[in-house]
């Protein structure tokens, strides 16, 4: 049985597929979120060094991972869209950017909240913090470039180029920042050696990572659906949906 994978690269069929998938991902994400938070706040033991404050790790680490991962996924789909001229891939890339930027922001925010009780300061110019901040700038650049271009196809392609340039630059930026950081060791706090974690802590964190995954997929699919409707509003199938009252 050969599955025609290309069937779902058409916005119309992807629209209905995504509509069926969203509730599943929302459900799984909520279940995992509740389970992860329960493990994180009630099951995992108190850290003997950091006290209760360490529990922010259950939000901070998944957010930081997602922020980096989503940029690569976004650049991948944007690149596919540029290379094969597939509209849906570019729409997906556009849909990923706000979620990625949100996770970057959460990672920075929770990092600051965590840093205050641990290191006594909201912000240090540590290599990880700095590269996360630069990643946030890259997301903002991608989104504002796309927002400034009125023609959606040009916006897709221009965004794809800047995303690919960014993805080539991320390792260079990361290692530059790391080197810069080792040169200016004086003021910074070393957070390089992660202390051994209790198994329940790790479990809680991994559940939260999975929950963030599911959440991202659900939100990105939803946003892609909206983008599809916006761009395909002139087509017959959207008009039909509208007539049936399926969309407002």
């Amino acid at each position: 049985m050969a599955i025609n994978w290309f069937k779902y690269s058409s916005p119309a069929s992807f629209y209905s597929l995504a509509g069926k998938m969203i509730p599943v991902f929302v459900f799984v994400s909520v279940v995992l979120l509740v389970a992860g938070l329960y493990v994180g706040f009630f099951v995992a033991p108190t850290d003997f060094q950091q006290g209760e404050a360490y529990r922010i790790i259950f939000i901070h680490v998944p957010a930081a991972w997602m922020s980096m991962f989503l940029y690569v996924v976004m650049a991948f789909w944007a690149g596919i869209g540029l290379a094969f001229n597939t509209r849906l891939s570019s729409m997906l890339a556009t849909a990923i950017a706000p979620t990625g930027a949100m996770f970057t922001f959460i990672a920075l925010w929770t990092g600051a909240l965590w840093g205050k009780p641990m290191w006594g300061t909201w912000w240090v110019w540590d290599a990880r913090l700095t590269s996360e901040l630069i990643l946030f700038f890259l997301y903002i650049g991608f989104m504002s470039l796309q927002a400034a271009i009125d023609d959606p196809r040009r916006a897709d392609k221009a965004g794809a180029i800047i995303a690919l340039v960014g993805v080539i630059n991320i390792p260079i930026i990361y290692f530059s920042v790391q080197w810069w950081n080792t040169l200016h060791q004086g003021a910074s706090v070393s957070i390089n050696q992660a202390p051994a974690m209790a198994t329940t802590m790790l479990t809680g964190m991994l559940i939260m990572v999975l929950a963030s995954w599911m959440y991202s997929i659900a939100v990105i699919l939803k946003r892609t659906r909206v983008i599809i409707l916006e761009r395909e509003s002139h087509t017959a199938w959207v008009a039909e949906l509208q007539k049936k009252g399926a969309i407002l």
Partner: protein
Amino acid sequence: MFMWIIKRDLLLAMRRQSDVLTTLFFFIIVVSLFPLSVGPEMNMLRTMAPGVVWVAALLASMLSLGRMFANDYVDGTLEQMLLSPQSLSLLVLGKAFAHWLVTGVPLVLMAPVLGIQYDLPADALFVLTAALLLGTPVLSLIGAIGAALTLGLRGGGVLVSLLVLPLYIPVLIFGAGAVEANMAGMDFDAHLSLIGAFLLASIVLAPWAAAASLRVSLE
């Protein structure tokens, strides 16, 4: 073709010398503002100098990016260039090189004078100039991508800063780092080698990406 585009862009720049001078004076003014804002304490100024000069060079180079393609775009020359059978990447490389000659080289020549304002020792001045000489072409090359992407957009000037400044960070780190290492009595060869590596990589990759961006912007 490569030489032709450089000659043409230089000629155009010479006919409009005020543009070149504006960028240079912007650079000088920004660097001179810092002592006025943080106080004339020489020890502090000396430690700040490499960073201040580099940030000012970054901003000056970025502000002049708009001119790289904009005029040719407005009068239709750029479209003719895209239609020509010549390699577009080579053309972009030529334009970036001309941009560097017009904006980067004056900054490099001016930097030692500004370094004296900050009481930098002689060999630090030399390292600063060498680092700028290697680093400013990278700024023009990376900037070409941003300039090509924002061609003809509303608020292109502010937008280009959002796109390009994060990508300038490695050059800034190693450029300023070279001078700081020299002042701390350490080796600065590694810094300069890395900027050289950025330069080579951007000579290969940036014209190609900028040419693709031009095609997107003009399609």
